[in-house]
């Protein structure tokens, strides 16, 4: 079968500190990888052994709804894994395999895995609707991590991984460029407000370490500006780190080892500036990785950890806004709503900043993914990405006309402009919630 992804070659793998397992050893390595993972995380075994094939998850998954491909039904996707798991790790699978749907490894196995585990956005919506709470995202995370150890990984992921190793951020931005970019933003703010609003880099003795998304230094500058204005307004002693200019943690999306390593960078950066509080910028899976994985990945953390939207919400009484005359809706990033407990905060901020806030349906923990989640941002996947974004486009279309579409996550911000254009809404303005805060805030 044809894999819709550009896969990493030997040199891509090397740059990411990975290696390919030779073809003839792949089966053995895959079975070994599954064995290690199942003894490492309880979720994998329980979720694989509990599904009753009731099919209730089918219509919960935008990936299936958008592509119509059977293997994108959460239970079918998990079954690609489950069939092998049963065959090699259950007594019934070894003896009466066909009866319980076990299957041998064959030449197609990895092609199918890589194809369909990279059409799962790890959005966890299926977990909300499955009667057992089976979270197919857990199976996807496991499958991707196991495949990466075999050298079966999209080139897009190894490219990000190589940048993470080199610079600590996905875009490969070196420190001098970071400083340039901050100066540029400071000038912009000076021009706009007449105030000296700083974006300090690696400033020692900072109370707060703010970890932006690296994309906020390219395409989403307004988010970073909004954050800087906010910190200025509350008089915070803050800095950004040049060593981990990245709220994202792509490790979660392709390799648990890389996840652990990127998490370690965040801890070291906090230690270096002596921060008591780490504030994470607008990045969905990055927030999940920070909030839910920091303790599990590297043990106890000595600092507080909060999301910028939560932090801004907690400080709302110190802020003054002049409402923008806008009709705005909010896309709940999956990793905020279902995986990160950021649900009401962005709503409260938006309501304070704009004249009309409208909800899309469904919303909050029932929201559909943008279709880019879990780093499915590859150019070669553009057709599939548009199918993955179909549900979102339908949701937004119902609310037109809109002045602004708030999508407070870097992956959503990268995916949704394409989706809106594809579905005939190219004029819609989009950006983060902090962009709106930055525009509505009144500074003294």
């Amino acid at each position, binding site marked *: 079968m044809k894999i819709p992804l550009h896969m990493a070659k030997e040199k891509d793998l090397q740059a990411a500190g990975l290696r390919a397992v030779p073809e003839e050893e792949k089966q053995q390595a895959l079975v070994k990888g599954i064995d290690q993972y*199942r003894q490492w995380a309880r979720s994998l*075994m329980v979720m694989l052994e509990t599904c009753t*094939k009731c099919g209730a998850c089918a219509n919960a998954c935008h990936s299936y709804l958008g592509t119509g491909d*059977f293997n994108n039904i959460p239970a079918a996707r998990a079954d690609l894994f489950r069939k092998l798991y049963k065959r090699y790790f259950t007594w019934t699978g070894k003896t009466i395999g066909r009866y319980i749907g076990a299957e041998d490894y064959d030449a197609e196995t990895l092609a199918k895995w890589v194809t369909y585990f990279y059409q799962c956005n790890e959005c966890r919506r299926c977990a909300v*609707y499955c*009667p057992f709470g089976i979270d197919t995202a857990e199976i996807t995370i496991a499958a991707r991590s196991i495949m990466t150890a075999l050298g079966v990984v999209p080139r897009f992921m190894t490219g990000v991984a190589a940048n993470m190793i080199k610079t600590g951020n996905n875009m490969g931005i070196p420190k001098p460029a970071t400083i340039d970019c901050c100066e540029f933003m400071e000038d912009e703010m000076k021009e706009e407000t007449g105030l000296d609003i700083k974006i300090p880099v690696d400033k020692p003795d900072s109370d707060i370490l703010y970890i932006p998304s690296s994309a906020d230094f390219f395409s989403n500058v307004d988010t970073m500006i909004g954050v800087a204005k906010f910190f200025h307004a509350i008089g915070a002693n803050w800095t950004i780190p040049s060593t981990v200019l990245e709220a994202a943690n792509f490790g979660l999306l392709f390799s648990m080892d890389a996840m652990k390593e990127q998490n370690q*960078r965040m801890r070291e950066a906090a230690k270096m500036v002596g921060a008591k509080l*780490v504030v994470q910028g607008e990045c969905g899976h990055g927030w999940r990785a920070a909030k839910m994985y920091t303790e599990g990945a590297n043990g106890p953390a000595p600092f507080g950890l909060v999301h910028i939207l939560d932090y801004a919400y907690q400080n709302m009484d110190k802020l003054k806004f002049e409402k923008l005359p806008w009709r705005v809706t909010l896309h709940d990033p999956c990793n905020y709503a279902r995986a990160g407990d950021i649900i009401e905060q962005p709503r409260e901020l938006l309501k304070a900043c704009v004249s009309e806030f409208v909800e899309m349906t469904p919303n909050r923990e029932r929201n559909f993914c943008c279709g880019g989640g879990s780093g499915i941002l590859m150019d070669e996947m553009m057709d599939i990405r548009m199918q993955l974004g179909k549900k979102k486009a339908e949701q937004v279309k119902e609310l037109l006309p809109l002045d602004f579409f708030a999508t407070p996550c870097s992956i959503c911000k990268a995916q949704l402009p394409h989706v809106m254009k594809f579905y005939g809404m190219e004029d819609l303005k989009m950006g983060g919630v902090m962009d709106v805060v930055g525009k509505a805030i009144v500074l003294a």
Partner: protein
Amino acid sequence: MLLYFVGQVLPYIAGAIFLIGVIYRVAGWLKVPVPFQLTLFPAPTSGAGRIAAVGTEVLLFKSLYNNDKNLWLWAWLLHVSLAMVILGHIVGIYFLMNQFTLIGLSASASQTVSAFLGTVFGLTLLISLIVLFYRRLVNPEVKQLSDPADYIDLLFILVIAITGNHMRLPGVEVDLPAVKAYLGSLLAFGPAPIPDSGVFIAHFVTVMLFMIYFPFSKMLHFAGFLVNRAMLVEAAPVYPTPAGTPLRSSFAGARAPVADSGQAKGVQA
């Protein structure tokens, strides 16, 4: 000879396989760590809230209700009637259908109510099994998802329900006190011969076979449900990490792969 095996040996084999099998599999899950909190938000924050959240799932199938009302109705009826039937077996046989005298009914009224409830739940079980079997055949997505075992599981319970309901047919007489005495002897580990009634033996044997089948099948979804739900309502981590919090797994303790080599080590850590 065969009756001796079926009546006095098989029940113990079935009971042992059932118990040991279920415990073995669940223990196999529980001994594996949960390296990261899998809290699914919005999540309850207190112990009572967690119990309430899992409780409404257990009793009402809340997620399924919100998702697919049609499937919910039949799945819920199936499980509720099954629970009632099991409860009815315990209470009805123990009290010889006189259990409702405890709430003030006369003995004959109690037996009528007991028989009525038994029939209602027995038939509900039968019908919901048939509907769910039919659904598996006609819903294209579910059909493609199903393995042979998924049909057999339903048929297996269907056979139990049919043989059970058979005993309620008019004209079929089963000597309830004899059944009670027999089951009592089994539980007291002094097995008496099985009552010589074809319909009872058919029902009893299918239940024994089902108990043997149970731990190897997806019937364990009842336990997976609880283990899974417990992970989804676990408290989210707090930072700074409170002093004395134990490491969640050895992964957290292992040194991070050297920062600038990025060498993937596999997850065994």
